[in-house]
């Protein structure tokens, strides 16, 4: 594991030889003196999927942002540990984060967006790979179209194409199904399950009921 990171080579879920786990250690989150959740402890190991559920304002997005390291928790800590040596691994080399705002620039084309995001996140990138990924999310022929002229669902698909570009193993996705049509939803569900079965780890929020889930699937209800 260490060697792979030092070599600066991208880490592919399929190449990860050992299993790892994300440890949530008594997390608490307080926003504007309102307690969203308290003493949340959870062990997630590779190959599993966690769906965070709860009504609006229950702290789903806050939890995901804490896990991604964008927000400090009021208390507690998040650690990514390899199960063999229980050494702590740097989270940001293993993480693919997609917030509700996906980081797609409207003024850039689909291909320009992806090629920038890939070089930012050290995912390998060649034009043909990006075109393949765009084709995989059903955007063949839209590679050179500026994103402002795409529909909301198509813009979401541009962001989702990153999941097809040799991605890191830990995916944290905030409402990834937003604006997708039924066929897109099914395809994304299949892709998430495939990723988990290949040893990846998926944490997501969605209001939509998942029809397809991997063997190791847990839900977490907030705000109850």
């Amino acid at each position, binding site marked *: 594991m260490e060697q792979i990171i030092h070599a600066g080579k991208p880490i592919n879920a399929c190449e990860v030889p050992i299993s790892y786990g994300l440890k949530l250690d008594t997390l608490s989150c307080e*926003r*504007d*003196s309102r307690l969203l959740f308290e003493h949340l402890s959870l062990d997630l190991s590779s190959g599993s999927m966690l769906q965070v559920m709860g009504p609006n304002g229950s702290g789903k997005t806050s939890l995901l942002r804490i896990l991604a390291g964008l927000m*400090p928790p009021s208390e507690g800590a998040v650690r990514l540990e390899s199960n063999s040596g229980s050494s702590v691994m740097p989270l940001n080399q293993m993480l693919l984060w997609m917030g509700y705002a996906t980081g797609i620039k409207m003024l850039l084309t689909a291909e320009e967006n992806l090629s920038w995001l890939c070089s930012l996140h050290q995912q390998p990138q060649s034009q043909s790979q990006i075109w393949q990924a765009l084709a995989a999310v059903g955007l063949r022929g839209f590679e050179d179209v500026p994103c402002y002229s795409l529909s909301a669902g198509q813009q979401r698909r541009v962001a989702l194409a990153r999941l097809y570009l040799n991605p890191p193993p830990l995916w944290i996705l905030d409402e990834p199904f937003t604006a997708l049509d039924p066929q897109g939803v099914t395809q994304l569900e299949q892709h998430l399950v495939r990723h988990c079965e290949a040893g990846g780890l998926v944490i997501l929020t969605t209001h939509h009921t998942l029809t397809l889930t991997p063997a190791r699937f847990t839900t977490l209800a907030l705000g109850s």
Partner: protein
Amino acid sequence: MNWTWFHRLSAPKSFYEVSGRWLPWLTGLMLVLMLTGLLWALVFAPADYQQGNSFRIIYIHVPAAFLAQSVYLMLAVAGLVGVVWKIKLADVALQQAAPIGAWMCALALITGAIWGKPTWGTWWVWDARLTSMLILLFLYIGIIALGQAISNRESAARACAVLAIVGVVNLPIIKYSVEWWNTLHQPATFKLTEKPSMPAEMWWPLLILVLAFYCFFAVVLLMRMRLEILKREARTSWVQAALKTLVGNNA
């Protein structure tokens, strides 16, 4: 070195208790120093042979200016402590100290202007010290405005900390550049604080008053911080208990 005492003190509850014990003593000290200093300065100290009695305003002006500058330094130190060690008490100190510093800055400017009228014959001159003090006031206002614009309390504290640190790095550069600008544009003839020879009977009350102002700052800061901690920790049981005893004592 053992730092546990520091962390124990920085917990809101123990800070509230310890500061409650210090506060009466500090207030007493402040009153004694302030009364001695003012009486000495305004009644017993001799009048200046050039400026007569109007010079006595420096007994307010100089301590206020001292305090305004050191409070800004304190803001940056508190900000650094808050950012590096994530101590919430430092955030509270930063945000509660900023308005006091701004008022001291304003006081120094106003007394400077009042002193300027009989001495220079005008309310305002672009003297290097006065100009730097005015810029310092704007730096304070920036910190206060930023703190009020951000609604999330912790983000506001951390943003103010960053701004205070950037400001304190800039402050010597600002001071130096303003001084340079000033000497180039109008050679200073008469400075407010640089007396070539100030006799001891004028000097001592000034020193006492500077100390009194620092004590005053400490008292006001502790009171503001205690109030803020009560507000922030309002949900906790120890605050509810503390409030009950406070209300009970008054009733």
